[in-house]
C-alpha cells in the first residue's frame, strides 16, 4: 500500500480499521505499523472527525411508535402462531371487565401489562389489542 492510498483510505473511512474495506484492511494496518510517523497525523485527523460524528445521538423509538409497529404486524396479516390465546385468556381474567376499555387505551394498557407479564405475553397482548381495534380477531389470531 502506498502512502497516498493510505491517506485516501483514512480520509474516507475514518481512523477505525473496522470501517476500512476488508480487502485493504491488512495492508493498511501494515502500512500504519511500518510508517507510524506518516500514519499518525492522518489517523489523528480522522479520529477527530469520527469523534464529532459520534456526538450525533441516535433517536430512541418512543413506546408509542414501538406499539404502533407491533400492532402493524397484525395489520399486515401476520398470523400469530404461538399460544397467544392462552396468554390472552389470562390477561382477560386479569383485567376483567375493563379489558375492552384497556384495549381502547392501547399504549396505557400495554405499559401496565408490561410491568406484570413476560415480554412474550406483552407482545401477544399488543397484537391482541390491535386486533380489537378494528381487525378481524379470528383472522389475526386463529
Amino acid at each position, binding site marked *: 500500500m502506498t502512502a497516498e492510498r493510505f491517506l485516501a483510505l483514512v480520509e474516507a473511512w475514518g481512523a477505525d480499521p473496522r470501517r476500512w474495506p476488508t480487502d485493504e484492511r491488512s495492508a493498511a494496518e501494515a502500512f500504519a505499523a511500518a510508517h507510524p510517523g506518516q500514519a499518525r497525523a492522518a489517523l489523528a485527523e480522522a479520529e477527530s472527525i469520527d469523534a464529532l460524528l459520534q456526538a450525533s445521538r441516535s433517536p430512541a423509538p418512543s413506546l408509542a411508535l414501538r406499539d404502533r409497529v407491533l400492532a402493524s404486524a397484525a395489520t399486515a396479516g*401476520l398470523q400469530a402462531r404461538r399460544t397467544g390465546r392462552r396468554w390472552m385468556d389470562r390477561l382477560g381474567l386479569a383485567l376483567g371487565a375493563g379489558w375492552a376499555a384497556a384495549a381502547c387505551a392501547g399504549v396505557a394498557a400495554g405499559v401496565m401489562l408490561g410491568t406484570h407479564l413476560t415480554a412474550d405475553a406483552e407482545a401477544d397482548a399488543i397484537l391482541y389489542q390491535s386486533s380489537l381495534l378494528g381487525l378481524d380477531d379470528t383472522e389475526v389470531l386463529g
Partner: protein
Amino acid sequence: MPPIADPDEDLVRRVGDGDAAAIQAMVARKLPRMLALAQRMLGDPVEAEDVAQEAMLRAWRQAPRWAPGRARFDTWLHRVALNLCYDRLRRRREVPTETPPDRPDPGPGPDRGLLAADVGSRVDAALARLPVRQREAIVLCHYQELSNIEAAALLEISVEALESLLSRGRRALRAALADLRPGAEGA
C-alpha cells in the same frame, strides 16, 4: 453465486410464521436502525417516525415470502427506508414553500460550552446541510455500519464513487465543525 449469509435469516422466517416473540425481536433489532436512518436523512423526527413505521410494515408484508440467500434482509430494509426518504425529500423540493428541512447551524455562540448535546446538535445540523448523496454515504457507512459493498450497492454506485462521497462529506463536516475540534480556539 453462493448464497448470501444473513444473520437475520432465522428471525425473518419466524416473523413470517407469525411468531409473536420474533415479531417483537424484529422490532427491537430493526426499528431503532430504521428510525436513526430516517432521522439523519430527513432531519425531522415526525417524518422519521413515519418512514420507520412504514418500513417496518413492509417488513411484515415481506417476511412470509422472503427468499433467503439472495440478499440480506437488513440491506433490503435499508433499501425500503431509503426509498421512502427519497420520496419525502423529492416532495420537499417540489413544494418550495414548505419549511426547509435543514435546521440552521446554531454556530459557536459566545458562551457556548462543549456540552455533548450542543456538539450533537451542531453535528446533526452540519450533516443536514451536506448534499444528499454525501450525507447518505456517511449515514450508511458510519452510523448504520453497513459494509462498503452493501452501501455502494444501496447507492447504486461503485465502491470508488462511495469513497469519494465519503471523503467529500467528511471534509465538508471538518470545515463546518472546525471550531469544535480539539485545539480550536474557544473549544
